[in-house]
């Protein structure tokens, strides 16, 4: 902690340390925490691999092993669990699709998996056709996170036609609040994480016209605190992950210039562990791969040198999204 107080202004991105940190994550099997977090394994692979792509070390994890692991998490239903033996759920299915997009391996789904149609049908089957909402799995629980995940992965698979996009859009609109933000469900308080999911879902559905952009951007830019970090809701503490949720939302509606970008860069850099790699929620705390990714995606959106560009809608490198969606630069 004492060291942090004299961190130099010219603090650099610790690229090599971050790469080593991410590579080390699957070698920690002698740590209890490794086993307690097995329910996040597939998400963790997506977070780590995306971070490595942004750091321009896309091959730092072996491609073949990555694909093998992803496919080992698939169920006959087409859905994916967090790890082999874990039940299928929307959250892991989206991560699986994102990882396969990253390593350009959708064809492996046909060769060795259930085929992409079944993956898409698993997600489409979780939509409530009356309300437009999405559940996470067969046990219910609806959340705009799942709705966004479905639109994200289905559009990457070119299978959006399997769901009722208009009804999904109507539901997102019902989650809007007076402050321009969105909540988990209609009536819920605006929260930056849910705002990201709702704005991205509306962007995928090509319905940004339904967003009160100035009001929303005002609320989002008021998330920045004097130390440069962003919080997720009024009167809460700053956290590096909001560098993604808030900033990606601002980026999608063209207003990242509404906050102090230099101060945010400084806050994220100060949250790095420059010795062992990784980024934490705020300076001086324990790092994890989730905050590492969202610190890096934040820096990427801020145009920090040495990082590849992130797509604010899909949370994948721009180059990946352009390849998959068939757009050219």
């Amino acid at each position, binding site marked *: 902690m004492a060291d942090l107080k004299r961190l130099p202004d010219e603090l650099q991105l610790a690229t090599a340390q971050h790469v080593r940190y991410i590579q080390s994550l699957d070698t920690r099997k002698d740590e*209890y925490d490794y086993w307690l977090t097995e329910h996040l394994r597939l998400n963790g692979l997506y977070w780590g691999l995306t971070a490595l792509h942004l750091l321009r070390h896309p091959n730092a994890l072996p491609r073949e092993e990555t694909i093998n692991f992803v496919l080992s998490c698939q169920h006959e239903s087409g859905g994916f669990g967090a790890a082999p033996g874990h039940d299928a*759920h929307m959250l892991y299915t989206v991560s699986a699709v994102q990882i396969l997009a990253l390593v350009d391996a959708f064809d492996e789904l046909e060769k060795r998996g259930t085929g992409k149609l*079944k993956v898409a049908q698993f997600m489409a*089957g979780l939509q409530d056709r009356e309300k437009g909402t999405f559940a996470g799995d*067969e*046990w219910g629980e609806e959340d705009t996170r799942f709705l966004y995940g479905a639109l994200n992965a289905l559009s990457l698979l070119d299978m959006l036609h399997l769901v009722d996009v208009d009804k999904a859009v109507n539901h997102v609109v019902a989650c809007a609040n007076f402050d321009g933000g969105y909540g988990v469900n209609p009536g819920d308080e605006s929260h930056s994480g849910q705002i990201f999911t709702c704005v991205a879902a509306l962007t995928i559905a090509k319905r940004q016209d339904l967003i009160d952009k100035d009001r929303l951007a005002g609320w989002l830019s008021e998330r920045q605190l004097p130390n440069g970090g962003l919080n997720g809701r009024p009167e809460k503490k700053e956290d590096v992950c909001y560098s993604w949720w808030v900033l990606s939302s601002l980026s999608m509606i063209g207003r990242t210039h509404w906050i102090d970008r230099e101060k945010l860069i400084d806050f994220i850099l100060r949250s790095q562990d420059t010795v062992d790699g990784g980024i934490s929620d705020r300076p001086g705390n*324990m790092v994890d791969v989730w905050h590492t990714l969202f610190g890096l995606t934040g820096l990427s959106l801020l145009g920090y040198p040495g990082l590849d560009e992130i797509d604010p809608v899909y949370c994948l490198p721009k180059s990946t999204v352009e390849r998959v969606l068939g757009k050219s630069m």
Partner: protein
Amino acid sequence: MDNHGIARVARTARTEEQRQQDLDKIQKYKQLDDAIRDKTSRHAYDDPTLFPLTSKLLRLNPEYYTIWNVRRRCLTSGLLSRPSAGSWPSTASPSTSPSATTNPSSAVSSSSSSAAIPPNPASLTTGKSGTTADVESAVDSTDADSEILRSELAFTVPLLLEFPKCYWIWKYRKWILEQAILRLPRPLASNVWEGELALVYKMLVKDRRNFHAWGYRRYLVARLESADLLGRSLVEDEFAYTTKMIRGDLSNFSAWHNRSRLMFRLLDERGADDEARAAFLDTELNLVQEALNVGPEDQSLWYYHRYLISQVIGSKGMPTITPNLTDGRKISYLEQECEFIRDLLQDFPDIKWPYEALLEYALALRKLRPGIKGEEQEDDPNFWLGKLRKLDAMQTGRWNDVERDIERQLADSII
């Protein structure tokens, strides 16, 4: 993997002894996990030894969502009675029940097959199946079900207190509650559900902003109000609850937010006419003014103030709590609130929030009085924008855009 607020320690800090302790813990954890997987791979959900194993593992790791699913399958594979023609009436399938959202293709998945028991159509129309024996057995199974469901709720309480932000625990609890609707007579089910309000109360005392707990509360209330349970409105109680929360902590934005969402129904159910609505608005403005006098730096209060003013002004296609205010009344409300805020500035000249409100309200006033620009500097939005630029340089990019927008509106004679 998702560390929040945990201080960083050097990775080399673990001694050999600690490493060994970790290895022991891992071994025990994996043995438990393996024992469960062994049974679930054989679909032995009715194996009486499986259920207690899930309790053990979930106490170690409530984030292990698959184990919650195993626990559900144990309950529906024998521990709970099967809802039948003899079970209690349920008026509708709950919106969050698995049957409403089940993936049609999930049946082919080995580990996600079986699962939910849809409400039996026969139970929708009758609560009785005829014979006394059936009724008695229904009563017996109801007692057993009631006990199991209550014990499931009790099981999750210490876990929720320790992991208040774990989605899977909240989700499991909701599932148990929906089972109560499916399996228990309505008064008993209502009783179980009402007990939940006490839990959520406790959770919100512990963390007044926990959005899981607030969302859970809204879910509870909506279901309690439905014909499946109490079948009556709780809006007055809920509104009173937000008052209580606000009195305890003025900066509880979650409570202010809930208040703002409740007031539409509150006024409708009170049958409030225009006069009553205006009186309600006055009371709310007074409440937030009182709070602002104490905490002018509090964003939550300013959002609520701006929310109330948005109700005064109204916007196209959006409902407001005071739909029939004349432009004259709107103007006088705005002037009154601007005056209050300018008074506040005498004591607190360096806080940015009042200036943001004054900028917004000055623009609104101009729109309401086309052609009348006002002589005073406080009628000029750019005057307040200048203050904001000085007090909040971090948002300079925003203020530049706002300035351009004001110029455009002036050029187009919108303001």
